[in-house]
């Protein structure tokens, strides 16, 4: 695949990223991080393009992309909600908040993104803010000592704002 062809198919940003990391196989992880930053997930055609550019098999690249939990092969929702379920958060009642959010958004541990692509809800093992347990992160904003009611209110607020903007 030539650079011109790729550019024509708007892989420009991927090419920039590859160049930034010297097209080095050892830098697969930072490359994938940068790509995910750009696309919010790792689209399959982009992965194939990267593998070809690095002269490695797509299987090798998929192997890395599927090993690390940070990488997502599925598109994520517009708003990303993360609930910490580390030990400190767990003993301070994160399960109840998790259940309440899943219930409200009609999600489960398998289905993490709402059908309208508005919300993705995932649990993470520790955010290192254990002093504030339990911790909820809504679009990179950290909320400490959260209760189920507060969590649902935060989501309702986002829903209302989205409705106003729609």
């Amino acid at each position, binding site marked *: 695949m030539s650079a011109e062809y790729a550019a024509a198919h708007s892989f420009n940003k991927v090419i920039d990223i590859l160049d930034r990391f010297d097209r*080095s*196989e*050892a*830098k*697969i*992880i*930072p490359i*994938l*991080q940068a790509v995910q930053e750009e696309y919010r997930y790792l689209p399959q055609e982009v992965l194939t393009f990267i593998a070809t550019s690095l002269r490695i098999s797509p299987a090798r690249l998929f*192997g*890395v992309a599927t*090993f*690390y*939990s*940070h*990488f997502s092969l599925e598109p994520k929702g517009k708003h990303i909600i993360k609930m910490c*379920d*580390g*030990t*400190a*958060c*767990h*003993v*301070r009642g994160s399960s109840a908040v998790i259940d309440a959010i899943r219930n409200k958004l009609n999600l489960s541990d398998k289905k993490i993104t709402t059908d309208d692509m508005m919300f993705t809800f995932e649990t*993470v*093992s*520790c*955010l*290192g*803010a*254990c*002093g*504030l*347990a339990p*911790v909820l992160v809504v679009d990179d904003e*950290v*909320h*400490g000592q959260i209760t189920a009611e507060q969590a649902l209110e935060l989501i309702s607020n986002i829903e209302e704002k989205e409705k106003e903007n729609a």
Partner: protein
Amino acid sequence: MPKLEELRDAYNEARALCDKRIIVCAGTGCIANGSMKVFEALKNAIALSGLEVTVSLKSHDPKEHKHHDVYMIGSGCQGFCQVGPLVTIEPAGIMYGHVKPTDAEEIVAQSIVKDEVIERLLYHDPVSGTAYKGPGEIPFYVRQQRTGLKDCGRIDPSNISEYIAHGGYFSARDAFMKYDAEALCNLYKESGLRGRGGGGFLTGLKWDFARKENNEKKYVVCNGDEGDPGAFMDRSILEGNPHSVIEGMMIAAKAIGANEGYVYVRMEYPLACSRIREAIATAEEYGILGDHVFGSKESFHINVMEGAGAFVCGEETALIASIEGKRGMPSPKPPFPAQKGLFGKPTVINNVETLALVPIVMQKGVEDFRKVGSAKSPGTKTFALTGHVANTGLIEVPFGTTIREIVFEIGGGVFDKDGKINNDAFKAVQIGGPSGGCLTREHLDLPLDFDSLGSIGAMVGSGGMVVMNDSTCMVETARYFMTFTQHESCGKCVPCREGTRQMLEILEDITKGEADEESLELLQEAGEAVKITSLCGLGKSAPNPVLSTLRYFRDEYEAHVKAKYCPTKTCKALSPISIDPTLCRGCTLCKRVCPVGAISGEVKKPHVIDPMVCIKCGACIATCKFKAIS
């Protein structure tokens, strides 16, 4: 060549021209609580009051030195996350907690313009209500011995001059100027400094193995993949005092003959990543890092690598695979990383906290360092104290301190299920996270160190310390940890991949009431097999939470499998059916339908169900006309 003495003296001179200093905690916890808004509000309030404030002290050029009324900094984590956002005022030594932007004007008027203390913002003891003025008095701080964390939360992490003024980089310079590699390894062997990341291996000995390898290229790796849920000391050090980690890496590099290093940080810690990157760039600018370390012929460069979310990468061989751009799977040892590590070259991997202590060992000298702690575990250890305890946060105590001192004195006591301080509610401390075990009331007076914890089936691990009260179900806790390790098992070796899955399934059966007594034997056996036969540390330590709870809370497991009863009513399937005495009319209908005779009571008086006999068939619930049974 940078002259550390000149930088130090210039900084101290400039600093002496500032009347007061305000430190706003800008660690992850306090930022989440809004500390940056507090910072801005304070800055504006000072300006409005007509005082002159600076947020970046220019110290390099003595001509620029001038008087400031207030010097404000954002610091790294001060440890007392529970009461954040924290604001400290020096030299008065006042610490305010739970500060809101709306408090800024009052703070400036009372404590900056005047020297008065605002009582309501002080820390109050949750039991006695006594107010404490600052870190010099608050029991949480007074009973600690902050060494590795000493400057964390006191200095501005983005100001290298401040680190130097506190004695920073002098040890690294000595290492490069006055020592040869062998002498350095010997010094650290004698100090008895052991790795703080979990295993407790002698740092100097590890270095010596790598030093003896004959290779042009060697690496020093800083392991900041703090995946253990419930521990955050590495994050705090990287955020609060990144230069100490760099200095530790430099000394390690000199000791083994490395010219390149990597800092591997979890991507869940964006602030830690940016602070360490910034610190490395500054150190290069100052000629401390780079092609000519301290003007010598030796070079040392440090790269930062962000992890991508895999707990197993905390294991050193898996971490190496991850830096090389592979799936983060561990490999069998030998060869050890010291022989064949990153890109096949001799590599030393040290944990963040260990590296932060390295310059301190040299600063204090071997003898002084060994004075603290226990004979085989010298020095101090940082613990992340969380869970059902009044004061949560990051603490540092000498090895040999007891759980009683940590939980009841520094921690300020245990919360019961109603949220009140009640030390009788103490049930257990889970130490070392998914690799560690539970300590109970009988261990309250055990001096904590690497060896004492190992002897009772726990480990220091990374230092996560989660206090649990008597409303916590230990079987559920074991299940929780097993879910974590099972999920994080990389799948390379069978015992860990399949064994943890089997253990998890048994634990799930137990919490659902679908297991019998034999399951406990099976669980024990599976746990021991996984422990002995797994390839890496993750698998070898994964059964610890299960085995230690089986050992110390056997009666709780038995209640789950024999009586099908969860004593804390945490496991929903095993929470007993009970009769509400205010609704029960004593009609005896339920007593008559119960197939196992679990219900007793006199006519017209409230009845009770014996949970040890009840089989939860639900017949009584269906029969009751008063809806008194649930």
